């Protein structure tokens, strides 16, 4: 699954996902990726978030919406990401989950559980090339 957040030169925020889901799924099963607020969420007034992992679990927490709501409540993107994973981990500590949160100023944070690591790809104008930052879960 890819989840992506972009902010353009006018400060507009967009987020999206694309996936083929989990292998061996029961036919008809859909994960969190196409569910607004779960796989991705964006709000020009605060920022955006995208989530990845075990979609059957993650959609039960509206993970991306939750991350953006934490931003709205004044938390930093890193705090917001940590709090989303903590929320999921409280109930499902053994399920894979990861999230990236970006605020409207371009600050970002990521958090994860169970995955051994969670790389995030980033590009902004101060960079000469795309950067990959990896979070240990």
């Amino acid at each position, binding site marked *: *699954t*890819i*989840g*992506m*957040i*972009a*902010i*353009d*030169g*006018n400060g*507009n*925020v*967009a*987020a*999206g*996902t*694309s*996936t*083929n*889901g*989990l*292998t*061996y*799924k*029961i*036919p*008809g*099963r*859909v*994960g969190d*990726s*196409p*569910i*607004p607020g779960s*796989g*991705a969420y*964006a709000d*020009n007034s605060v920022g*955006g978030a*995208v989530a*990845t*992992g*075990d*979609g*059957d679990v*993650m959609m039960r927490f509206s993970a991306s919406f939750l991350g953006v709501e934490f931003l709205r409540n004044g938390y930093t993107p890193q705090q917001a990401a940590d709090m989303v994973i903590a929320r999921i981990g409280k109930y499902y500590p053994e*399920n*894979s989950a990861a999230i*990236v949160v970006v605020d409207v*100023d*371009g*600050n970002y944070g990521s958090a994860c559980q*169970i995955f051994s690591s969670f790389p995030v*790809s*980033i*590009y*902004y*104008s*101060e960079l000469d090339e*795309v950067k990959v930052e990896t979070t240990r879960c």
Partner: protein
Amino acid sequence: CKRQPIVVNTWNFTNATIKAWDVVYRQQRSAIDAVEEGCSVCEVEQCDGSVGYGGSPSEEGETTLDGMIMDGKTMNVGAVAGLRYIKEAISVARHVLDYTKHTLLVGDQATEFAVKMGFQHQSLSTPNNEQIINDWKARNCQPNYWRNMLPSPETACGPYEKVSSSIQDIRVLSPPVDEHNHD
């Protein structure tokens, strides 16, 4: 610090990031265009086998796609789920956003919508799908997502029948979701 514009995406799918950055920075186009075109790169490249055609088959060996795009300016969303026979999931989602008043289209009728919008109807399966499912069947269909069925889904393939409620197994054992198998 102020970092506008910016593109951030999950995993080390850097060609998607580079494409989105080109759209939003060099071409000075919209964030929504950047997300669509960035994620489309992954659909073509079949990033990690977890995006696009020919990956993550169902028990029956079929690949279906899910995609969603959200505009934070208008709070409008377009999405497709369980999309069959169309490779461009996020672009179809963009068409749901741009050309309908709906949010989410699913299954065969999402496919019909996509065809009406000019997308090509084509198989999403590759020989890799068949190999994955043959290997899975050789492992007695392990792992899988069934529970409370007979024969036991933990040891045998289906078809299954429901277990009566009095002897239900309440354990929730999920197949591994890892760096190469995720939503």
